[in-house]
């Protein structure tokens, strides 16, 4: 299988689906001639034209609202938000409109739309180009939310998202774009929405994470494996719905649970996973659930030292795992 970067996998997913299905279109800032600020849509306007790959005005509510309308008319739009941080002006269109359209119309109308946005830090993006805002959407019924951590999933989940009849938020970790490479078939394939993936099997500690943190968890797991502790590393991949069965199964098997994410912890994915474990695994637990994430500060600062302070790292995870193992 050919090796591709996370970014190439995303671009290929869009390109292949646009070739297959002419209803697919992209609307976003700088997605055209520039190919996006990260290059994810590079070459797509040249291939599909200015209408199907359209530079939007600088207005996020417009991007999402127009895509909703186009989806109602039968298109399969991809709304690109340049940085996840700038999704906030579009929250009303996403939460009040896209998420509720099917429900409020008693299944008369649906919004088959994908909203793509890069998130996450560690790129000196400072307060507004580094956030992980997934929690804001993962409590919203009517939405689906996915975050791939590998190039394989990046393509497969994106194709599933584009074929889904309901709105899917597809969040890409911007640090993964070029740093994460992996095998990606040239052919089309799908990865189902709603399912987690066990990335490493183990019996001592179950680690749940997503995005870049999955890779750090794998590294930390390797390090403590040297001392005989076997971690099961689960990539949640789908943050709404969460794969409850997979969470419960790995948590029960291991008896010790860590949830690790980049965002601050309060009212987050880590909270929800911990709550599920607290509800379903009471009789199986050997230690308190441990949550690891960013501090409770508004966002990741610019200066190196401050950014490093914020970020989850393999070192921090390793230290926490050793504490949990010793419990």
């Amino acid at each position, binding site marked *: 299988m050919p090796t591709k970067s996370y970014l190439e996998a995303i671009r290929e997913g869009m390109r292949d689906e646009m070739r297959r299905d002419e209803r697919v279109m992209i609307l976003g800032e700088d997605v055209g001639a520039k190919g996006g600020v990260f290059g994810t849509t590079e070459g797509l306007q040249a291939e599909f034209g200015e209408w199907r790959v359209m530079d939007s005005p600088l*207005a996020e509510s*417009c991007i999402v609202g*127009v895509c909703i*309308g186009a*989806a109602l008319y039968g298109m399969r739009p991809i709304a690109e938000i340049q940085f996840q941080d700038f999704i906030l002006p579009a929250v009303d269109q996403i939460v009040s409109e896209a998420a509720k359209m099917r*429900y*409020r*119309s008693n299944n008369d109308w649906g919004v088959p739309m994908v909203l793509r946005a890069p998130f996450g830090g560690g790129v000196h993006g400072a307060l507004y180009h580094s956030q992980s805002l997934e929690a804001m959407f993962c409590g919203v019924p009517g939405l689906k939310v996915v975050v791939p951590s590998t190039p394989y999933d990046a393509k497969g989940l994106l194709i599933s998202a584009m074929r889904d009849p309901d709105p899917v938020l597809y969040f890409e970790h911007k640090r993964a774009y070029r740093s994460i490479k992996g095998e990606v078939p040239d052919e089309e394939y799908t990865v189902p929405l709603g399912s987690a993936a066990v990335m490493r099997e183990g019996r001592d500690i179950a680690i749940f994470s997503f995005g870049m943190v999955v890779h750090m968890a794998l590294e930390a797991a390797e390090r403590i494996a040297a001392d005989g502790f076997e971690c099961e590393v689960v990539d949640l991949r789908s943050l709404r719905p969460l794969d409850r069965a997979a969470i419960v199964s790995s948590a029960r098997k291991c008896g010790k649970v860590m949830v690790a994410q980049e965002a601050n912890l309060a009212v987050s994915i880590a909270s929800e996973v911990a709550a599920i474990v607290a509800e379903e695994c009471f009789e199986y637990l050997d230690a308190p659930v441990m949550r690891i994430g960013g501090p409770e500060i508004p966002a990741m600062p610019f200066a190196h030292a401050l950014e490093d302070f914020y970020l989850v790292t393999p070192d921090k995870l390793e230290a926490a795992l050793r504490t949990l193992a010793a419990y």
Partner: protein
Amino acid sequence: MVVARSHAVTRENVDADTLRTLYRHMLRSRVLDERMWVLNRQGRAPFWISGIGHEAIQVAVGMNMEPGRDWLAPYYRDLALTLVLGMTPRDHILSVLAKADDPNSGGRQMPAHYGSRAHNIISTGSPVTTQLLHAAGIALAMKMRGEDSVCVTSIGEGSTSGGDFHEALNFAATHKLAVVFVVENNGYAISVPVEKQMATPNVADRALAYGIPGVSVDGNDVIACYRTARDAVQRARSGLGPTLLEAKLHRLTSHSSDDDQRRYRSADDLAAERAHDCLPHFRSMLEDLGILAPGDAERLRLELVAEVDEATAFAEQAADPLAESALLHVYAEDD
């Protein structure tokens, strides 16, 4: 900004059949709307929000749309417009009574939250102004497919203060999309008068910011509305882009059944407004012109009341939604 008014010449441009149809549609909506208030006061419908006073522009716009081809992204006062496009009194009484077969939402939404795929009327929620962007998106898709259909969307004047108004008009203008933006300017957003909403005398002035035509029409003058709507729809259909069409009219009721406008408006003001009701004005004109014979209007009214009676009886017997059905249709997989 162009101010359009009907006059003798115009009237000649609209044939008698059309005039009669306009009148019938207006009256039908009025009769149904009045019934909604009765159901509310009787305690049978917990909520109603009315289109009384807004009928002329709605009927004028609807009559210029092609059902089955053109699309509508409405707002909550558009009872008359949905009727012209083919929805029925039954549909809406099912909704006001929150019945399972309500085609708008199956009793899930408040009444007057219109929507029907069968009629190309997209589902509307409560947050105002969002639908204008949907209309732009629909018209974008129409254009990408090379169709010459039109998407109409409507909004109150207060709601034009929201950011989505700007983003939608800007997008539609930039891409010359086939959208007709209809503003039903009744001078109030609940209790807030338009002077506290904006500094310009006409909402139509806002069109200037987008390089598109802005037209302000007397919303109590159905013929002027008809002609203006026809121009705007034709303009859109022929690829010339959007129009901002403002109709100045009166909200002849409180904002909704939860509101009492006497708290914030004077009795004089309210009485004066009543005198501008579009419906009796139009009826006298048609009678003067001999388009309605003596007794026609009353016969028509009785016929429409009978239709609404039947619809009321039908809807009252219809089933309520089952409690567990609340879990359905969050996602398509539910089916």
